[in-house]
């Protein structure tokens, strides 16, 4: 489904600040995989997502999505197939536009030939029914500016928008980290429902080790720009949080150094 082959990326090449963020990284994600990705600060998790999403071009290696080599495809073109959510709930929506305008905007990617006279009532009904699925009451606020919504509401809306036309891959970069615990749970639950309903191949970076094990079918651990652990199936089902941390220590010869790590099961 999504294959990364020998990816290398060095930032600030040729300067004293040069930093190799990805070291010959190769990994294959299967259709329908829900992969949680964990690792220390600066391990290169976000960099992998940026490479897949096309925020920059990689120095060497290939990225193949569903049989198509997208290594040199510009970011906006990849976006047809790749949905992304970031930690910052403000990144995915336009604050000065209304909820329905934001939705109509991303809906363009599947529906280029929409009416030139504003949003049709058919589209509006579709948006409303989509918003209803979130269960946040946003369906009654189609004409509110998105800037007036709370962080959690905005993130839920972004999730909805990113998946409105089912993407081939969904990239979630700590998308609940900036939310309060109750809202984070709610957004995580919505994520699971949407991913399941669309059978979307999903990669999720998280700092919550227990939810990394609890959610999805596969867990990948990164360190220093490489994948150091990739578990699924029985091995993963039996894994406990302390065992996982121990395994990390063994593989990387350091402890998991993460200022935002969450070990509790809340």
């Amino acid at each position, binding site marked *: 489904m999504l294959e990364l082959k020998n990816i290398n990326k060095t930032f600030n090449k040729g300067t004293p600040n040069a930093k190799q963020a990805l070291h010959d990284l190769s990994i294959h994600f299967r259709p329908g995989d829900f992969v949680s990705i964990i690792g220390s600060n600066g391990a290169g998790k976000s960099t992998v997502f940026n490479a897949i999403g096309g925020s920059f071009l990689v120095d060497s290696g290939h990225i193949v999505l569903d049989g198509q080599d997208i290594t040199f495809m510009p970011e906006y073109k990849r976006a047809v197939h790749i949905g992304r959510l970031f930690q910052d709930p403000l990144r995915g929506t336009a604050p000065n536009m209304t909820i329905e*305008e934001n939705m109509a*905007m991303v809906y363009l990617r599947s529906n280029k030939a929409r009416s030139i006279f504003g949003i049709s009532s058919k589209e509006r009904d579709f948006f409303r029914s989509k918003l209803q699925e979130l269960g946040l009451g946003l369906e009654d606020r189609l004409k509110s500016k998105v800037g007036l919504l709370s962080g959690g509401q905005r993130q839920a809306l972004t999730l909805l928008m990113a998946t409105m036309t089912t993407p081939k891959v969904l990239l979630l970069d700590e998308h609940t980290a900036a939310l309060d615990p109750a809202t984070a749970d709610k957004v995580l639950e919505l994520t699971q429902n949407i991913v399941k309903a669309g059978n979307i191949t999903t990669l999720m970076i998280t700092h919550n080790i227990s939810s990394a094990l609890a959610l999805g079918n596969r867990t990948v651990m990164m360190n220093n720009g490489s994948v150091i652990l990739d578990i699924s199936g029985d091995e993963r089902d039996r894994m406990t949080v302390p065992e996982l941390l121990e395994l990390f220590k063994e593989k990387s010869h350091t402890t998991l150094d993460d200022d935002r790590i969450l070990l509790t099961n809340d």
Partner: protein
Amino acid sequence: MTLTLFQGTLEQGLIYSLVAIGLFLSFRILDIADLTVDGGFTLGCATSAIATLAGHPFLGLGLALIAGSLAGVVTALLQTKMKVQPILAGIITMTALYSINLMIMDNRANLPLLKCETIYSWAAGFLPEDYSKIILLAVIVLLVVLAVFIFLRSGTGLAVRATGDNPDLVRSSSINPHNTITIGLCIANAIVALSGALLAQYQLFAEITTGTGMVVIGLASLIMGEAIIGRGGILRCLIGCLVGSAIYRLIIAIAITSSMQPSNLKLVSAIIVALSISWPAIKEKLEIQKLKRAAGK
């Protein structure tokens, strides 16, 4: 102020409101300070004057629209594909336009259009004489407002609006923000050039310096309009452009009838724009002062 003077003021207000609308698109919607406007306005004057001299006043408006949008495209290409800073991109185009405008005007700094058939003389042929200009201008401006309004609610319009609001969202909607910037600047400058075209035929001459300072004048009108009408929906902002521009022309008319030198008006515009744009920063400073004083007690 006499009634004729007042009517003339309104007519000019309508003409210049198009500059404010163009700036609304670039400055407010795209969030780009587009200095192409100074050159683009004169470009509209020049193309309109040349066509009018040749006996084709309406063609003049059409040519101005086309020339203006080309100027917008050049500025957009400079800042998207060539990565020139937006302000500099506008300055480059504006500078180039000075020579191009002179070329269009046959290397004359001033082109009089006396005794030429214009869109206004055409309108005077079938409209009540005293009101023909204002009716014609109102119809044209209304059409532009309507077109911009419809455009900004269309799919492409949404993408253009999102470009100034959150370019990430544009990319993630699989639209190239370079294209939306180009479309936006193209339309904005077409409208500005149309304004110049209407003015040239209205005042019966085109002058190479007409556009100088037009960005600041347009911004002043835009900002005054926002202050009075508010910054709600799109329609509200567009109406604000009309109101702001009329008020600006009114201020000029009053200044001319009083003893003030009309040439001082650009200074006044500059102060209006500087103050209104820096208002949030000034307010913050004042509030901090207030807090400090309160804490000192």
